């Protein structure tokens, strides 16, 4: 099953696209696993996710921690710390 990944701000700019559908390989259970796997997908991902600790993640439009399981996620968004308000 495909999962939709969405990127914002400099994560989007560095990866070079606003979103994509990916087939997650077996063994990707948590957000941290996802970030590790994405980072290995090429230079642009490596650049965007160089410091995974600063990347904020939302599953189905709700903030989650990196230890969160991603089972059941339709939509996973990756973005830098927010600067609204």
């Amino acid at each position: 099953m495909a999962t939709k990944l969405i990127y914002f701000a400099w994560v989007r700019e560095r990866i070079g696209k606003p979103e994509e559908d990916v087939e997650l390989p077996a063994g990707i259970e948590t957000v941290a696993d996802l970030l590790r796997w994405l980072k290995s997908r090429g230079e642009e991902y490596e650049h965007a996710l160089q410091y995974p600790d600063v990347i904020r993640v939302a599953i189905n439009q709700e903030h989650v921690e990196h230890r969160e399981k991603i089972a059941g996620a339709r939509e996973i968004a990756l973005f830098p710390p927010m600067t609204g308000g």
Partner: protein
Amino acid sequence: MSGVVVPVVRIQREDFDVAAEIARLTEGRADIGAVVTFCGLCRDEQGRLSALELEHYPGMAEAEIARIAGEAIERWPLQGLTVIHRHGKVRPGENIVLVVTASAHRQAAFEAANFLMDYLKSRAPFWKKEHHADGSAGGWVDAKEIDDKAAGRWKAPSK
């Protein structure tokens, strides 16, 4: 009192009208004693900036602000609550964000507005990119640790 307070939440490109938003909460009622508004404006940083560009996560931005607004309504005796956040390009001197809180009592209105701004800064999915006045490439605004700390001060020890 007219029972449950339903917050007004809007994400929009256009500017907002503070007086109209105050009137929307207060008109036709006589039980509101205090209205606090907070407007966040775009600064030019001593002439360095020509604009800020606000990116947001459509869908989640509305949902997250509604969650924060709901928390404010649980914590303070509010009679009305409005949050409007703009997206797109905003020029120096223009409005970015508006919070309006209405209550019978002033401390509730002040505290809820302050809380909402702290939470918007640290949890609402918006990102600001600077456009430089001299035409050089601008970058993304860094999140300030102070904003996270400001949000943290609202955490009750019992929670």
